[in-house]
């Protein structure tokens, strides 16, 4: 933020000042953005210009989406006079318009091949902070950009970037509830199931290889596991009951889910590779929506054992059961942040659903109010962003919100619910 203030003084330009205010508004205190300049790449002869344009456009769009990286505004970038004979002077000019880092890219290629050499200059020290070489076909230009953007986010946050991440969800746009998957920003929607039945509750394996979900495909609800890249489907549980709400253990070896005979619903665990399910809870009413903690040691879930649906937690073996929520009239759909400290969940305020968070160290509860009903929170793999479902526009749609709480609608067709976010699909 200091460098942005300096920028305002150095340029004293109306455009620059306006740009500053935009940055300040979307940046919460204590969460500073790193400002990176991404000028046009140098193209060696033979490089496919369309692929180069895709790569640079995708990279700038990705970096512009992050909460941790800010791009030098186009207005300020125009003020920089590039001196090819004196790169050091050019870098100083980028620093003068507020850039802390400069991404220097060289593209080469022949035929369908594309090679990107990227260097990130730390403009404060004058050193190269990061250097990478990517090689692939021109068809992978966007993937190359996403991969580079992910590495930059990782460099500045220590967490994986979201740019190759996918969100699985349930959509009724075809007339039946089917599983779909899309890129994290809502683009590239793909239909995964065509069962013309009811599909619910998608949950990714941590490696993005498998998707567990509930389907009424064979009449009564059963728990299935699907390999999206290979159209491979198998049944994980056909026990009596609802067979719903799968959640993978962090090692990917087990799936917690909810089912039970005779009207009771309890938490069970089944090997992801198939095998006999083991019952973890012995409640008399409803225990459902298990959510495995990131360290694998605990499972949060919803139970109505106390009268209304509330969040509970237990060790992964079913021991040390205790209640987590006391201030809510309704608490459901627990979702662990990757840090293992914060739970997002669905609460009820008045007669509407709202997203809330619970800090497990302090017990502090925070409601994130929004228009309409807001439910089914789901963390981005890096834990900086929440996806959730809202009916604020009249139909039920998936939104993502940045750490400042600013929401963006990413689905439009039909009703779209139950987002499940994974870093990368294998």
């Amino acid at each position, binding site marked *: 933020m200091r460098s942005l203030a300096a920028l305002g003084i150095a340029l004293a330009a109306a455009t620059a000042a306006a740009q500053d205010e935009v940055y300040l508004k979307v940046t919460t205190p204590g969460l500073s953005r790193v400002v990176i300049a991404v000028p046009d790449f140098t193209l060696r002869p033979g490089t496919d210009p369309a692929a180069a344009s895709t790569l640079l456009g995708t990279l700038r769009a990705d970096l512009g989406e992050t909460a941790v990286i800010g791009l030098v505004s186009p207005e300020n970038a125009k003020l920089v006079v590039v001196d090819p004979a004196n790169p050091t002077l050019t870098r100083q000019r980028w620093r003068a318009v507020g850039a802390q880092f400069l991404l220097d890219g060289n593209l080469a290629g022949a035929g369908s091949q594309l090679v990107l050499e990227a260097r990130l200059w730390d403009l404060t020290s004058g050193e190269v902070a990061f250097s990478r070489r990517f090689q692939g076909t021109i068809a992978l230009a966007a993937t190359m950009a996403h991969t580079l953007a992910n590495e930059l986010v990782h460099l500045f946050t220590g967490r994986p970037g979201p740019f190759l991440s996918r969100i699985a969800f349930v959509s009724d746009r075809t007339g039946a*509830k089917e599983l779909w998957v899309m890129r994290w920003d809502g683009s590239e929607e793909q239909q995964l199931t065509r069962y013309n039945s*009811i599909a*619910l*509750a998608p949950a990714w394996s941590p490696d993005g290889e498998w998707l567990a979900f*509930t389907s*009424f495909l064979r*009449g*009564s*609800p059963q728990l299935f596991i699907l390999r999206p890249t290979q159209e491979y489907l198998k049944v994980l549980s056909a026990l009596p*009951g*609802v067979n*719903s*709400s799968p959640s993978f253990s962090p090692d990917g070896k087990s799936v917690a889910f*909810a089912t*039970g005979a*005779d*009207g*009771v*619903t309890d938490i069970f665990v089944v090997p992801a590779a198939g095998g006999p399910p083991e019952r973890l809870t012995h409640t008399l*009413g*409803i225990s*459902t*929506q298990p959510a495995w903690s990131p360290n694998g040691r605990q499972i949060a879930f*919803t139970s109505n054992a106390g009268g*209304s*649906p509330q969040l509970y937690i237990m060790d992964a073996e079913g021991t040390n059961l205790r209640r987590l929520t006391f201030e809510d009239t*309704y608490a*459901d*759909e627990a979702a662990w942040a990757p840090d293992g400290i914060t739970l997002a969940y*669905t609460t009820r305020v008045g*007669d509407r*659903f709202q997203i809330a968070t619970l800090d497990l160290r302090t017990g502090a509860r925070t409601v994130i109010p929004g228009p309409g009903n807001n*439910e*089914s929170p789901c963390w981005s793999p890096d834990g900086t962003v929440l996806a959730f479902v809202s009916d604020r526009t009249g139909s039920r749609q998936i939104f993502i919100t940045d750490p400042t709480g600013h929401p963006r609608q990413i689905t439009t067709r039909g009703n779209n*619910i*139950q987002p499940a976010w994974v870093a990368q699909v294998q």
Partner: protein
Amino acid sequence: MTTPQCGRLLAGVLLGVVLLAPACAHRQAVIAPEPQPATAPAVTAPPSPGQTSTTVAPEPTITPAENPEGEIKSAELPADIEQLNKAGYLKDAFFDTSKSELRPDARDALAGDAAWLKQHPSVKITIEGHCDERNTEEYNLALGWRRANAAKDYLVSLGVPASQIATISYGEERPFATCHDESCWWQNRRDHLVITAR
């Protein structure tokens, strides 16, 4: 949906009146065809074993009820399962918000269902548990399961063989009415009894 009429008829059920005619049709408020005349009275007159021995003048109206197996009456039921369901022999049970306990009106409806099922032992039913939209999808799936089994348990307690009854939960996935207020929600908080075999 002819919601208000449906509501008034339900109020009748609340008073303990077992209606002879198909009362509150299920999804569509279709005026149901009259059941076979011989079948209808049977609903109110369970078989009485002592009846046959001492009466000088046999009651002329009671005929099918004397068949303990119920086979003849099954034959008189509409052959088509869909028609059978539309005829409204079985009444649904309705619930309070987020509850799976049977209300008095639900018990009355199910008592009538139990009597009819015992007279038609070849009939098989599925009890579908349904919910309004005011819980999350997956909680509602569990709630609907509880509702369906609450009705099954009650029917079994009234003497209906458990083998006649299957249960399933649809949660909030198959609403009967789709608006977003109580005028629709009460209709969706129900056990819907569906005949699957005659």
